[in-house]
Every structure is written in C-alpha cells, then in structure tokens.
C-alpha cells in the first residue's frame, strides 16, 4: 500500500521497495475549470553528488532538458495545463544507469510563474506527486499537494539515494517559496 505523506514527513522505504530498479515519478493535477491563468505544474529532477550539488547543468532534468546526458533519467515532456487523465508529467529513472558519482536524485514540483499568477498548490485541483516502482507498477508513496502544503509554490517531493548497493527513497515533503529558480540555486545551479 502506498504511503501517503504529510508535510515534513520523511520515510525510508527500504522495506517497501528494497530492490528498486526502475522508478516512475508521476505528477498530476486537474486542468483549471475556472477562468484565469492555467495552472502549469512542472516536475523536475536533480542528479546530485556527495556534496548535495549538481555536477553541471546537465544534471538538471526539466521541461527544457528532457534527458540526462547519461540517459538514466527521462522526462516525458511538459504538460502546461494538467489536461488529460492520470499522470500529467512523469520522470522515468533507470537506476542501473545512474553514474556512480551521483549519490542522490531529488524530485521537485514547482508552479510555473506562481508569483506572477498569484497561484499556490492549494488552488490547484487534485494536485499530487507519486513514486511508482515501474517494474511492479505499484505506487510506493504519494504526496497530495493541495492538503498539507497548500500555500506553497515549490516542493521537494523526495529523494532517491544510494544505500550500499541498493537505492532507497526518502519522502521529504518540504515546501518552499520562490519556485524553480530557488530550487536550482539550492542544488548549485546559477540562474
């Protein structure tokens, strides 16, 4: 059964998914039914070294750079409105192909132009981010963005990190202001 996160919770899922190999991180939300600027949520991934920073901008996978240079992380593409069923954006990670120097992969979700559009996660219908073990197609963890982080505009969903020869997932659920730019700075990318 998937673990439903609350704000600030950290969960180590070594029992739930001890031999993760292929991971899907899915982001979904409802298209805006009311009038006004669309809600455009973006899922991103950062490949991080032991210092918690990216090695270069190539380690930042987002809507303008859909694939890591190593090919281990693939973004399925930008959805700008949330239209459609199921996950609206997804990142597929093949852990066997992640370079050895990468200790950790952080997954984030941000609202595009949140400040200009005066939007936050609480205003978006049914926004979530979830982690799926792609080999078994089982949902491992889910964060309901509108409930516990309603006024936030940027969120670290969770981190996959090396543990010996295994990978583990830590569910972070930490919200921030400042959008994607703030996330980039935190991981060592100058914007």
């Amino acid at each position, binding site marked *: 059964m998937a673990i439903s996160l609350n704000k600030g919770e950290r969960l180590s899922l070594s029992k739930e998914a001890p031999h993760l190999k292929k991971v899907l991180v899915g982001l979904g939300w409802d298209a*805006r*039914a*009311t*009038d*006004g600027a669309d809600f455009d949520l973006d899922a991103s991934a950062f490949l991080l070294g032991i210092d918690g920073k990216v090695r270069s901008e190539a380690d930042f996978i987002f809507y303008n750079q859909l694939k890591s240079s190593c090919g281990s992380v693939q973004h399925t593409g930008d959805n700008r409105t949330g239209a459609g069923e199921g996950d609206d954006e997804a990142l597929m990670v093949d852990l066997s192909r992640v370079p050895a120097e990468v200790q950790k992969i952080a997954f984030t979700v941000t609202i595009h132009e949140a400040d200009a559009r*005066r*939007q*936050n*996660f*609480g*205003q978006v219908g049914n926004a979530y981010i979830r982690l799926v073990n792609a080999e078994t197609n089982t949902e491992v963890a889910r964060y309901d963005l*509108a*409930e516990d982080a*309603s*006024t936030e505009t940027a969120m670290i969903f969770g981190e996959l990190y090396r543990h010996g020869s295994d990978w583990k997932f830590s569910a972070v659920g930490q919200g921030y202001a400042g959008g994607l730019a703030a996330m980039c700075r935190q991981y060592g990318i100058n914007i």
Partner: protein
Amino acid sequence: MDLQAGQNISISRHSPAPAAITVALAWEPATTALTLDANAFALAASGKVRGDADFIFYNQPTLPGGGIQRAGDGRSFTITFAALPAGIEHIVIALTIDQGQRRGQSFGQLTQVRTEIRDAQTQAVLAAFPLATRMMAETALIIGELYLRNGEWKFRAVGQGFVGGLAPLARQYGVEVADDPDVAAPAAPPAAPPSAAPSAKPLRLEKITLEKKGSSISLEKKGAGFDELVINLNWNQGSAKSGGFFGRLTGSGRVDLDLGCLFKLRDGRAGAVQALGDSFGSLQQPPYIQLMGDDRSGASAEGEFLRINGREWAHIDRIVVFALIYQGAPNWAETDAVVTLRTPHQPTLEIRLDSHRNDQRMCALAMLENQSGNIRVTKLVEYFADHRVLDQAYGFGLRWVAGSKG
C-alpha cells in the same frame, strides 16, 4: 485566523468541534449597485451534484434531506454536518452577481469579499477569508469549499470564479441550467413535452427584480395550476452591536416589521390576514392565505412569511401585500427590506423597499391580481399612515377598528 486563497483548515479538529457552522459573506463597499447572490452546491465524491436539488440558491433555499439552509437575507448558510444526506462530501459556497455580465459589472467593483466560518451555536469565528477583489473580471466567485477528508470536515479558501457568471458555475458542478440570466432571453421556447421525472427538468436560474413602481409581471398558470406561493419579507434586523441585549430591552436600534395582506375573493368577501387581531388566515379554508406566525423576537433570520394556496387561486380576486412598522419610529431605509415571491417552476420575484417615507407606518408592497387564472404581480411600494388610508387607496372597502397584537 485569516486564510489565503488555497489554504485549508480543519473544522472537525477545532475544539470544541462544531456540530453546525455558519458561512457568512460580507463585502466592501457594503452599499453597491451589484445585486449579489450566495449559492451553495452539495456535491458527491465525484465533485458533481446528485441532482439539481443539490443546488441551493434563491429559488431553492434548503437542501432536501437537510443539512444546508440558506438564510433569508441570502448572505449566509448554516451547515449541520450530522444532518447532511449520506454521500455529500463537498459543499461549495459561491457568490454571484445577478446579470453581472449583461450589466457590465464584475467583482472588480468591490474591494473585498470577506467570508467568516462561525460556530453556528456560539457564533465564534473559526476562520475568516478576506479576498481582495479589485481587478477581478469574474461575475461568479467560488468562495470556498467544505469537504470531507479522512472523516473530518475541512474548509478550503478558493477565490476563483467565472467571468460568465452563475450559468458556467452551475454547469461546473453538474447542474443542468435551463436559462442563463446573463444572456438575453431567447425567443419563446417550444412547449416542453410533459416530463415523467420532474427532477429531469432543467433548473430555472431566473430571478426577476421588479425595479420600478408600477412594473408588473404575470405568472402564467401551467397545467394543474399553481402550487404553494410563498411571500417572504426579510429585513435587516440589526447586528449585535446596534441591537444587543440593552438595545432589545430599550427597544431602540431595531425595527420590527409585520407582514400582512388585504384580500378580496371572487365571491366578494374581503378581509385582512395579519398578526393584528390574530387574523392569521387559513390555507385550506377561505381566504386560502396564511400568515406563518409573528416573530417579534427577531430570532428568525428568515423574516416573515405569507403562504397562499395556489391550487385555490381561482377563488382569489386580488391581494395587496403590506408591511407595517408596529412599534418604534418608522425608519424604512434602515430596514433594507426585501420581498420575495416564490412558487415552484416559476422565476423568483424580488421587490426591494425603496423610495422610503419615514413619516408613514405602512407600506403597500405588491398587488397580486387574478387575471384569467394567471397571477399578475405589480410592485407598489406606496406608503400610508394606516390601514384605513391604504384600504381606501386600493378600494377593498373594509371597516377598520383599532386592534392590537395578542
């Protein structure tokens, strides 16, 4: 605590957990040219209404089965959680501008819409949602949503809406809308075939405000005739500040209005239905008009009601509905009084008491006339010193003696 758009709070986890809450809406400036209507949508888990009866608005002020009551002044809802029908998991509260788009109005003409969630019993404010509305082009605004999550009721402040007004708002929640009050009335629609399931009939959003003295409208008899007609008089009964304990004791600061009518039947009989002299009338016997109690306590937020048995409309010739200030100095302007006339399958009629005359104690509100079986409603809003003068003006020919309330 003040909420921002997007923020949510738990109602159930509040201590003590309220059994019922009031969601009260107010706006600034308080005096505005906009005609604002509060609406509620009771939704199933699917996010849609189960049927059109789950839309609570001026033509339908309560949820069948209970749990949601729209106040007569149209500015608040009382939600009793335990009384809600099973399967209702969301209650959306919205505010709309009547014919806003057609009149070139929007929420941008207000500076703020303020919502308070109160414990219905203690009136303690659990949360407030002040929403700045300047620049908003919307004419329908979703204020917020009460929703059930993991067994607890929560409220989320929303503050989003529709430029197109009530019709797109209602459709969003699955309400079938027959007429869009915000677009010009279409040419006479073809006669609808008799429908087996009345609930399948699209809901009428129409509300007609009789703006000017002498303006009138005819409610046409359809099929078996009219059902029950309900005439409601509602007025500003004074806030706790101006009324209050001592205000009530000294009789100052509050105006008490009485609703009544003069009637004439087809057989020539005439009379009055009013609290004075305990002439409350009857629905089943002539005059087929009944006054529902007299509420001098002001405890009812709904004001006063006159009911007319529409099935007996054929026996009625005409009715003049009036309001009376029984005690205290007449101050009509302060009452901010509104008369609504509701009858099933007909648009709601609304008449505001305007062109105030504070030297007079009575106001003739509306004339209801039987014209070939139809009900012709005319706005009067004419002020008179007493019953005798009013009677003379409309020619009922009654004899008047001084009376008092029992």
